[in-house]
């Protein structure tokens, strides 16, 4: 028999896990742990990072760094969401579109964001647009592929039923295909949010003076190691936070789906 009072509170174990990681980090960096393959000799300690973070927060630079990065990520992500869902619906619905569009997209898919940099600079008139394009490439494919998968997985009987109830092709797309694919699209949007942040540092290597990715890259160039970790943690937290927001919004948009899974 298991008493419910023996179960730890919900956040206890995740919280302890995070604290354990920080303690390990502290010990490894303070005692310059060297395992041969990995070495903590040059890794800044949590305390140094906290000091650096404090400096960034109290400086006037944090806000422009944040707003530049957020607007780039959201512009790139927004464009990826529109295009990914739009093209995904067409590819999933029409076999011809699949043969026309999917092969070139499959070739572009494995190209990492960093490899896009030179071409992005050449293609786009401003460095701002090139940076938005890089975050766009990060978000596009998870959204596109999950949309295609969602559309293809829609129950054919529901489509047949809708046709028998008088739905024309456009109504079928709007009333059956889109809501039917919605759970998968939202999965794609959540993953795409994360991958869009992945590409931020790469994007902001291009140029500029503002942005968390730029801050991280610049800190490496001028050897301010604690600042690198501050930048990394900021990107991690912002990426996690925005993915979480997408997830919550998704839950709100498809209440029927979560209900069905719990039944």
């Amino acid at each position, binding site marked *: 028999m298991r008493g419910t009072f023996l179960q730890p509170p919900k956040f206890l174990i995740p919280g302890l896990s995070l604290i354990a990681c920080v303690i390990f980090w502290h010990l490894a960096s303070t005692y310059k742990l060297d395992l041969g393959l990995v070495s903590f000799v040059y890794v800044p300690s949590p305390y140094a990072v906290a000091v650096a973070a404090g400096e960034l927060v109290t400086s006037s630079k944090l806000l422009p760094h944040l707003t530049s990065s957020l607007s780039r990520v959201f512009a790139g992500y927004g464009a990826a969401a529109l295009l990914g869902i739009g093209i995904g619906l067409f590819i999933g619905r029409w076999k011809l579109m699949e043969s026309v569009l999917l092969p070139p997209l499959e070739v572009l898919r494995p190209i990492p964001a960093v490899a896009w940099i030179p071409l992005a600079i050449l293609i786009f008139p401003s460095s701002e647009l090139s940076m938005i394009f890089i975050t766009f490439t990060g978000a596009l494919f998870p959204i596109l592929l999950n949309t295609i998968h969602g559309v293809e997985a829609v129950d054919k009987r529901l489509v*047949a039923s809708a046709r028998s109830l008088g739905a024309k092709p456009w109504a079928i797309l709007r009333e059956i295909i889109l809501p039917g694919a919605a759970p998968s699209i939202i999965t794609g949007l959540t993953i795409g949010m994360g991958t869009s942040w992945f590409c931020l540092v790469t994007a902001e290597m291009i140029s500029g003076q503002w942005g968390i990715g730029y801050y991280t890259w610049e800190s490496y160039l001028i050897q301010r190691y604690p600042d690198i970790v501050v930048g990394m943690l900021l990107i991690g937290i912002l990426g996690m936070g925005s993915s979480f927001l997408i997830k919550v919004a998704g839950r709100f948009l498809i209440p029927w789906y979560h209900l069905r899974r719990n*039944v």
Partner: protein
Amino acid sequence: MNAAASTSSAVSASNLSIHLGHGADRFEAVQNVQFNIRSGEFICILGPSGCGKSTLLGALAGHLQPSGGQLLVDGKPVGGPGPDRGMVFQQHTLFPWRNVIDNVAFGLKMRGVNRSQRLQQAHEILQLVGLQGFERRWPSQLSGGMQQRVEIARVLINHPSLLLMDEPFGALDAQCRMEMQQLLLEIWGRIRTTVVFVTHDIDEAIFLADRILVMSPRPGRIIEDLRVDFARPRDAEVVTTPEFMHLKRHCLELLRHEQGRALPRLSPLGIPTAEPQAII
């Protein structure tokens, strides 16, 4: 209730054949079938699993194309699917993202009826199938019998002149099936549309139908056209009468005589395919 304004269709099939599958897997599911259905008749198509009776229904709905012969509804060849030929599937096809009343009102939305009128008519139809009070539920919150009631209501709101039913009560338990059969007859008594009801359950066919078309195993052919003359309205008592037993024995004989190997079930949409696998 303006459902009474429904017209009902006459159906005729001559030398009708339907092939399913592609290439080497292509086979004849329905072979050289002839029949006539008068306007307002309640027809049951009775046959073993996989005999092509659902295929025939799919062709009437317009989801499948005949490969030979003619299939006419009110003198015109069946084109694509349409709201005048309502279709009820064995497993409900309610839209999981719409609650009960919006599912029922879907056909009206497709016709451009405004929302308040849609809801009002959907309320009336839900009353007809005995589901008032469940308007705001999601389909997944209903029992199997209630889901089929919603499915029927959703089709009836379009006033179909031909009601096509593919073993609609096949997945329900015996008690519930009996209730739904009586409900269907009660509704049909009021709206008098033409019904084509596919089943492999002999009792169900005799209890419901004016006429039973008995089909052979694949390739499906019609091997008997039986009249059922029990007075209407019918109640559950009728199944214990000697005449009912006599008809039942006759049907059993026909089906036993034609018994072959068991075939996989076909659907009105053709050959059932496996659900696509998830990819990440």
